């Protein structure tokens, strides 16, 4: 196979960008005849814009933002598809030390809802709504945080103020007291914990077990014009996910992420990789993280509607089927010898309030 122009693959400085970096640096793309250029972007907005206008062919993306961009909730509707999941879990809710101390309960229950109810009591005692940071309105972080707060009896629009801060700046914002807490991806929670300003309150997998985190989004015109390149891209990423998931790979994966272009802190990243020491760890392939399930897309869309960001004129199932394309992954899965779970099968993952996350109606 020959591919003339290199595939432009966008990502952010995050530990869950590992599959793209590993596939490139380990020569997995090259072995498949694919030339790939990584483009490290400073914002999710850049990724969405560049995918929409053909300056990126593919990117590691937040599933809710991919859906929002495709539906035209942030500017003109972007022609993009989600053919693959890149990771699951890995985000943490981290709070300032004094908040953690105030809601600590050594004898009390430690499930997500018990922690949420203690946070609710603390919030009620505050003179003004404390500020919590997420990385984008249309992020898994924001939707999962809001789901958990609401399930704990907290109104996320009234009892807290949500601000958006880039992941690499949340640690400083927490240290300077500009926010009471944040929900961000790895390794930023781990770093805040290490420097003593933050305490891990809970991982997002406690809010929704096996929740999808990053997905691969591709520009639809590119994908349609380059089906062979798309298959090679999917296969390379699939191989890289399996490598990242393997026992004994954490050290060298963290080492790769510590090098340019990501320059992430190796020790903190390593803790957040599969089998790491952090409480919340990234899954790259396990738990069905690689399959872009439409039921999950519907859950994200339903949450957006719940908070009033998505009108009733949009059919959720229709939108999910248009953007989420697990069918495109079937051939790549076959070529890699992965047993294909099919496009309709769901991996059940429980939500913290006892509902099943993959059931479209959950939490609506």
């Amino acid at each position, binding site marked *: 196979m020959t591919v003339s122009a290199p595939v432009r693959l966008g990502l952010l400085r995050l530990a869950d960008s590992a599959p793209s970096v590993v596939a490139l640096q380990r020569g997995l793309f090259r072995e498949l005849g694919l030339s790939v250029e990584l483009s490290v972007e400073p914002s999710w*907005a850049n990724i969405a814009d560049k995918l929409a206008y053909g300056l990126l062919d593919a990117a590691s993306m937040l599933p809710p933002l991919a859906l929002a961009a495709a539906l035209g909730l*942030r500017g*003109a509707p972007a022609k993009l598809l989600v053919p693959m999941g890149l990771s699951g879990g890995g985000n943490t809710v981290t709070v300032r030390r004094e908040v953690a101390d105030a809601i600590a309960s050594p004898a009390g229950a430690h499930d997500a809802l018990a922690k949420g109810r203690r946070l609710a009591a603390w919030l009620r005692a505050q003179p003004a709504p404390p500020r919590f940071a997420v990385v984008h309105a249309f992020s898994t972080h924001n939707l999962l945080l809001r789901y958990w707060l609401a399930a704990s009896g907290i109104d996320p629009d009234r009892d807290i103020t949500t601000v958006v801060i880039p992941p690499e700046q949340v640690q400083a914002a927490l240290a300077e007291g500009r926010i009471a807490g944040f929900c961000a991806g790895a390794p930023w929670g781990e770093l805040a914990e290490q420097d003593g300003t933050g305490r891990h309150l809970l991982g997002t997998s406690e809010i929704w077990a096996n929740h999808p985190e990053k997905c691969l989004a591709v520009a639809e015109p590119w994908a349609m014009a380059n089906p062979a390149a798309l298959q090679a891209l999917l296969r390379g990423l699939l191989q890289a996910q399996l490598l990242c998931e393997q026992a004994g790979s954490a050290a060298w994966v963290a080492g790769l992420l510590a090098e340019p272009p990501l320059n992430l802190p190796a020790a903190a990243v390593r803790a957040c990789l599969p089998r790491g020491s952090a409480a919340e760890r990234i899954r790259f392939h396990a738990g069905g993280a690689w399959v872009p399930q439409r039921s999950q897309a519907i859950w994200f869309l339903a949450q957006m509607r719940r908070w009033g960001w998505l009108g009733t004129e949009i059919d959720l199932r229709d939108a999910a089927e248009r953007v989420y394309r697990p069918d495109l992954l079937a051939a790549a899965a076959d070529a890699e010898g992965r047993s294909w779970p099919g496009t309709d099968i769901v991996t059940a993952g429980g939500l913290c309030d006892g509902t099943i996350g993959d059931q479209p109606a959950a939490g609506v």
Partner: protein
Amino acid sequence: MQALAADRGITVSRLQPGDSLLEAVAVHGPDVVLVDMARPDRDALESLRQLSASNPRPIALFVDQDDPSFMEAAIAAGVSSYNVIGTPPPDVKPILRAAVALFRRYQQTRAALDSAETRLEERAVIDQAKTRLIRERRLSEPDAYRWLRRNAMSSGQKIVDVARKLLREAEDTRS
């Protein structure tokens, strides 16, 4: 931005380094925001509509759907635009065009400056390595340079990289 400021129909407010994009938008209430795409706080700006319950000022990514190639050129140049009042003013396109052209020129100047700085820095490293060779291996200056060049050619590296390696090794043996 002078060309924009010279237009009497337009008031241009520029952010100072370190200013928050969100605060500037709240203070100035602009019709259109032109953003350098290198700013990480773009995500905060475009999340405002969903997250600010108190002041839901409509913010939309301003996109000319009739002219995607223009938006592509703007994004390639590193400029993105947001319309914060709902309907874009009719004369917004010339403003964007001027901004894109200015931004591109600014980037070229910056790139030229960067490469000049890099060259100066590289020359300093090579000079330092030469000084060390002259002192420690008692080479003449032309011989020191030839030594670096020969090593660079045989190892397929740049002269400056060989110089850096030499200095690093000298550092290691000392410590």
